């Protein structure tokens, strides 16, 4: 899916603009974002600071026009700054290979995610399935790290979250849930005469619904619940998902958002 918002900012816009160049660019960016009336107050205030912009010691900073470029071009993947401690998504180095699921399992998982989400664009669907794989893959390490908390940190976690939450973190095993659920799904599909992926689409959907209606502690239901939870997180944090929700945040508002009904 491509929109005007996806349009990357020219590389040379990120660094080294003079104030005049920046003000000229500002017009382009405000047009791009459809935000009117942005330039004058900002140009005024930023202009003042730029004139003052004497060298400051490391760690100190002045308001910067770079924020605008970030705000208005933020749909593009950022260039990862050297030394950053942030886990940015890395550009793909070839076709995706699942880390937890086998290739065959991943095809089943991808199809289930497709059934859960319905008609979404293929990029968002693939992204969501990859997210599901990441979450299941990282679950064992999280559990292990929780179990290895030293006694004081464990006591603090219990005081903060409550005992039940901490026990859940230390004992939950999404990987085992996935394996058991997939095995049960294979078995159930065989009862219907074909591997899951070879069943007609309507039968696959019926089977997903059947999973959702199983008693809570059964393998199919537990797997379904985890898969649905991660599919929701994955999709609604994707670009397509947020656009579908019409999310109005992480934006440049010229007025303080408030109640228009008052």
């Amino acid at each position, binding site marked *: 899916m491509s929109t005007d918002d996806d349009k990357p900012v020219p590389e040379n816009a990120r660094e080294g603009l003079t104030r005049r160049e920046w003000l000229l660019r500002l017009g382009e960016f405000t047009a791009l974002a459809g935000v009117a009336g942005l330039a004058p*107050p900002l140009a005024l205030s930023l202009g003042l600071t730029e004139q003052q912009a004497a060298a400051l010691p490391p*760690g100190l900073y002045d308001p910067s026009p770079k924020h605008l470029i970030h705000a208005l071009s933020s749909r593009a993947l950022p260039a990862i700054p050297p030394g950053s401690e942030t886990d940015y998504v890395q550009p793909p180095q070839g076709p995706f290979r699942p880390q937890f699921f086998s290739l065959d399992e991943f095809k089943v998982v991808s199809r289930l995610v497709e059934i859960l989400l319905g008609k979404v664009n293929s990029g968002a669907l693939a992204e969501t399935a990859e997210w599901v794989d990441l979450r299941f893959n990282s679950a064992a390490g999280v559990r292990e790290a929780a179990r290895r908390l030293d006694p004081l940190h464990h006591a603090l976690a219990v005081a903060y979250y409550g005992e039940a939450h901490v026990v859940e973190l230390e004992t939950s095993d999404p990987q085992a849930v996935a394996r058991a659920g997939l095995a049960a799904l294979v078995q159930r599909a065989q009862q219907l005469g074909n591997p899951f992926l070879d069943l007609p689409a309507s039968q696959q959907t019926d089977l997903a619904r059947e999973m959702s209606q199983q008693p809570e502690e059964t393998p199919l239901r537990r797997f379904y619940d985890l898969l649905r939870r991660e599919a929701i997180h994955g999709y609604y944090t994707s670009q397509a998902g947020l656009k579908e929700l019409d999310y*109005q945040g992480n*934006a440049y508002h010229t007025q303080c958002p*408030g109640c228009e009904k008052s």
Partner: protein
Amino acid sequence: MPARRNIYDVLIVGSGASGGWVAKEVAERGLSVLMLEAGPPRVPTRDFTEHVWPYQLKYRGFGDQQRLLQNQPVQRLCYACDEYSHQFFVNDHENPYTFPADKPFMWIRGRQVGGKTFCWARESYRYSDYEFKAASRDGYGEDWPISYKELEPYYDRVESFIGVSGSREGLAQFPDGQFLPPMALSCGAVQAQQVIGQKFGWRVMPDRVAVLTVPHRGRPACHYCDECQRGCFTASYFNSPSVTLPAAARTGKLTLVSDAVVSHVLINRHGQAEGVHYIDRSTRQDREAYGRVVVLAAAALESTRILLNSRSPQFPRGVGNQEGVLGHYLMDHFTIEGGGGLMPSLASSKREPVGRPCGFIIPKYANVGTNRNSNFLRGYRFDGDGSQELYGHAFLLPEFGDAWRQKVRSDIPYYFGIGAQGECLPRKDNYVMLDPHRKDAWGIPVLHIVSSYGENEHAMAKAMRADLSAILDEMKLSDINPPSERLSVFGKNIHECGTARMGNDPKTSVVDRNCAVHGVRNLFVSDGAVFVTQGCYEPTLTIMAISARVGEHIAEASRRGEL
């Protein structure tokens, strides 16, 4: 021949809200300043993540939980220490502390140029004589040696410089200030204002926050992206690296040394401070720095730790600890959280703009004026907000597929949440001391922290819950979540104050009314350590006002040759 000592007029330890104000005040009056900061400088283009989208992060904003558990098992408990902002919080293994297992303390720390001001919650409230003179009012504890009248001009100075938005309300227990226009209220808050005002007579108003609603002193107004804790390229909220420290630096009088972990104050044979000993964070080399005046502004517990660790023949238990008061009277607000529910009348199919970096507050009303509550001393305040769900309702809506997604998109619930924050009484049995067995990554003894809430806090919590429940009922919410039965963990609200408190009597306090350590006239503490009480409001604005006053006092006293 030994190298000649470079002696600065003022040596400041810490570069956050407090250190920034002391530096600005003394540098602008012509004094040379050396500022030592334990952490590294932050680079906005590298370290800020203010406009990053979840899909641009590997873990979609949920964070690498394994790494957080391993490296930041304490810091991860803070809402702001997430995948976007964990870099602003310390590594807990390098910076350990201890506590009795049955009295957990949550110590949230930010070591970098700017300290915690990158990710503070920006709420900025003046204290009144309900706080400064609380003991005179109800007989518990000690008064501050200063009054609201004395601090008022410094509140004015701080607010006018950093920019605080808020509404003028004319309440004696909640003094008005030099405000920029207030933020707008959400629809949920507008309804709360009407319902709560009418039924209970309590005032609902926008939070007073150090966020610019109009351009101010060369900084543009907020653009309402609502992710302040990720850094702010526009410097539209107060943090010291973009507001007070540049002002100090532009005088040409400020020398800033980062990655300098201060272990103790150097005391000369006359019992006066002459500098500090520090360790280079990266090379682990020992170093010394010198000042005619030393100011500790490292955050309450760090400043007290430095004092406790400054042991010498004159001060065998730490400087300022002649009477055994240093380390005691630790406070942190407690909160009752989790109250809320859905507002059916605000359910909608249309998305509203989001990004307002503030909610609403209901100032303290218990034990105010003629209102006296016989069950507890002091008081509490409420805060909360209303907002549309983003996709939380997707989990609860049954089914799946296109029709389900359509419902997620068009049936948008509106959630209203409210919590309470109460005053913690200063008690001697809440204290910090040096742990005799444990050192940090730089070989400095760590703190052992002993804290618990007492009878007064528990009695107050009962009243808070009752009032919260009455509000939730009156708001006619559906799917109500009752307020939590538990008090928040001590330290959770990151308002730790006290442990080197201010007072006229050296037997019951650590610093005097000018924040100089009793008996060491050129050693000052300017942060939350000096608080005598903390009311139920956020301490940072008061820390800044005190720091401005300390800076002015140092400059004036230096000019008169008294230091």
